[in-house]
């Protein structure tokens, strides 16, 4: 009797957990549906009733790609260092550092970006400093730990006998890394990149605090940008009517992008070639 009750209760919790993502999808779709046709446009200006998400989408994509341009090579380098080069004692010091960094709340990264990166850009390049470039730098530092640890796993998953064979043939560590490890771990590395991409695309606070948030297409890396996520955080508090619907609809767009990216990550990880 008690056993049956427990089974029923646990099944119920599982159903609630599984319903979570469906409820989120339902909420943004239902609340945003009426505004969906209004999203296709190049101007986001709620005061004029124009809700084109193009500048926001461009902001999100540019910040994400810019941050990956920094985080991917650095992360792969860190992964190589941890799995191939570092003595175990050193790796055991660096790894907790990365883990700790990954745990720091994004609002703190935003704050550090605001007090360090933004003034630095202002001093070196002029302008307000709040810019696409600042967003890319802050985000790159933020996703680097994830990138590094997944890349390390990918390199560690490469069959050790391949490595030993290459060294036995007289290959240098550089040759082993470049000609053997990178191609052999490409599945896992691709998964790492897509994972970092997903995180960067979804990040809100850190980016919002340093990018200046002008909803316009940037002409240079020093121009301000506004992302899809930042836009929701900035405007939700006072949005009503069609404006609020448009924000929910932009959330639905974000969810679609996110699910597509995660699907890609799963495929990349499953494709083998060093994946799990």
């Amino acid at each position: 009797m008690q056993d049956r009750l427990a089974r029923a209760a646990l099944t119920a919790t599982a159903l609630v957990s599984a319903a979570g993502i469906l409820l989120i999808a339902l909420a943004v779709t239902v609340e945003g549906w009426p505004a969906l046709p209004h999203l296709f446009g190049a101007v986001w200006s709620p005061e004029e009733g124009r809700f084109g998400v193009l500048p926001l989408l461009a902001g999100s994509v540019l910040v994400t790609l810019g941050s990956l341009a920094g985080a991917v090579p650095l992360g792969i380098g860190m992964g190589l260092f941890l799995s191939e080069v570092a003595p175990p004692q050193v790796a055991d010091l660096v790894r907790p550092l990365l883990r700790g960094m990954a745990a720091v709340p994004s609002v703190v990264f935003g704050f550090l970006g605001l007090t360090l990166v933004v003034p630095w850009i202002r001093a070196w390049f002029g302008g307000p400093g709040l810019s696409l470039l600042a967003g890319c730098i802050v985000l790159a530092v933020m996703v680097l730990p994830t990138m590094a640890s997944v890349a390390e796993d990918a390199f560690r998953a490469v069959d050790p006998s391949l490595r030993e064979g290459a060294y036995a043939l007289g290959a240098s560590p550089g040759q082993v890394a470049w000609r053997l490890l990178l191609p052999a771990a490409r599945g896992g590395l691709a998964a790492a990149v897509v994972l970092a991409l997903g995180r960067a695309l979804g990040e809100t606070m850190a980016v919002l605090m340093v990018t200046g948030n002008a909803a316009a297409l940037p002409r240079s890396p020093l121009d301000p940008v506004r992302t899809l996520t930042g836009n929701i955080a900035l405007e939700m508090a006072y949005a009503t009517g069609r404006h609020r619907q448009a924000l929910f609809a932009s959330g639905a767009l974000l969810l679609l992008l996110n699910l597509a990216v995660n699907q890609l990550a799963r495929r990349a990880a499953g494709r083998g070639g060093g994946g799990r």
Partner: protein
Amino acid sequence: MRPLLGALALAVSATMIGLVALLVVQGAGNLTWEFLFTMPSRAGREGGILPALLSTLWLAAGAMALALPLGLGTALWLVEYAPPGRFVGAVRTLTEALAGVPSILFGLFGFALFVVRLGWGPSLLAGSATLALMLLPTIIRTSEEAVAAVPRSLREGAAALGATRWDAIRLVVLPQAAPGILTGAMLALGRAVGETAAVLLTAGTDLSIPRSPLDSGRSMAVHLYLLAGEGLSDGRAHATALALVAGVLLLNGLANWLMRRGRKA
């Protein structure tokens, strides 16, 4: 290649240590007991962060109280009860998909359902419920690992002694898996304390001592965002950031310590 990678690792490590050191240097002067436990005045320009500290604790505790039973229950179902087949696959896929969803979307969902539809308004309750959903995937994954790591033979032994499956879970599996479950809970708690976007949309920004779950409350993370964004008080922003980071790293350190102890045992 070795020196190049070594230099890279050194640079990255130095940057990370440097950032934390900077926070400590600039925040430690202002981070006193008095700062933590007094009321703010002039919108946070002066005084302490007592209401933000309390709101943060309530939000995190509320989220945990909701997410732990749900997540642990789901994990137990997945490992102990779920009949193999497509249904389990679906539940697993759906909960894993939840893990990658950006926090602002949790905020939108919480806003639509808890704040508006259920009429709770921007409140600690709405914030906790939203956070709970966000923490679920972490708790499910870590609990599932902990529960699955309990040796089959213990369950079989319990069954041989006449225990029902639920008795075996309650008396044998859960005590064995407790350190692992607790580790996951600590990690999740760290995320709850630091989360900003989802809380901003659902718990509001009211900077007074919360008196009921339906009161709005400004968490420390949201407080930091507002202080920094409005350029209100640099010293107080640094102290708040330091307190936040210290809290989160403490929780993560505790989680790591628990995990290592669990492995040794």
